[in-house]
């Protein structure tokens, strides 16, 4: 997936992580939105039977976006870990937030439902995988 050009206008910082380094820890507080610039990251979830990989994200992929849409959910629901050396960009969350708030209530509500359903499916997978 190529990195959309719109991303660069919102990037405020870049970080590099070595293989296996945890970028976001499940349960931690945070609302930064990230983009994978180089390399891959794995999204993992804690279950009763250990960590389960939900997805592998590649260049251009966004992660950490759920709190942007669901304001109450500021706890990270998944652990994001570098899979090989990785470079990520950090996006200007407050600017993204301001632009999101300008949308109509309907469009905002629609997108929030999407984020809520993503959150719920992450939780469901955690329960099934842990059985």
């Amino acid at each position: 997936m190529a990195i959309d050009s719109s991303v660069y206008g919102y990037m405020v910082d870049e970080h590099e992580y070595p293989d296996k380094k945890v970028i976001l820890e499940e349960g931690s507080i945070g609302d930064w939105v990230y983009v994978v610039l180089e390399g891959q990251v794995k999204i993992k979830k804690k279950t009763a039977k250990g960590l389960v990989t939900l997805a592998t994200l590649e260049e251009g992929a966004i992660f950490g976006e759920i709190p942007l849409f669901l304001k109450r959910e500021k706890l990270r629901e998944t652990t994001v870990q570098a899979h090989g050396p990785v470079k990520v960009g950090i996006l200007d969350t407050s600017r993204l937030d301001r632009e999101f708030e300008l949308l109509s209530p309907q469009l905002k509500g629609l997108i929030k439902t999407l984020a809520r359903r993503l959150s719920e499916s992450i939780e469901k997978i955690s329960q099934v995988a842990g059985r």
Partner: protein
Amino acid sequence: MDAKDRALPTIRLNYRKGDLIMKEGDYGVSIYRVKKGHVRVTQQQGEMEVVLATLGPGEYFGEMVFLNKSVETRSASVRAMDEVEVEVMHPVRLSKEYDGMPPILRYITNQTLNRLNRLNKLYAQLLKKKELESRGPTDPGVAQRKYFRKTLDQTCIYKPVRSSDKVRLQGRITDISVGGLGMEVSSRNALNVRHEPGEEFIIHTTLPSGREIELIGKIQTVSRNAAPGRIQLGLKFTRLTGEATKTLGFFMMS
């Protein structure tokens, strides 16, 4: 508000408990917002109907077709779980706004959508796997009757469980299910090794998926009528390792 908006106002609809509001596979453009009550979102994944979400007041559904322009049919079914009132919107107004959204927000939203779709598939796969694991190969015939068989044409190496490693017989697996398999062997194999009901064999083969698997099963049926010089065996699995159960389960799902 332009002419189109005036012609397409928001509609209010009421549903009773159990009513189907949206059907998977149907064409549809409406976007729904729950005003009262709760709805259940389900999807057919293979033979299973999977519950994806329960939505309440203020939440939307029917948005997938709107957000993912390459899809025209509903990705899930939605049913009322109690007395439900929904607001139905025609997407035309939202569509304009969506197209005019800051590209970065559209970019992020599309990824959230894709991730949701992929996780729903993963969820269904995990559910199926757990179901297979909980039934297991040692369950009585009931579980096996429900599972379909896959026809195969796969060579295998087998030998009686209680025999020396030097014994190496070749057979051909003709069909397989999570409960057992059908195998065809040369009648010459039966000259020195008993091929009768009750005999337990250990079988090694490579599945079409490329995965090697070790299976242990007892002969249930023996047929010498099928073809000259060939014996048809029906085996029921008696013992499978966790690894074999998983490998077989995934193969049967594919």
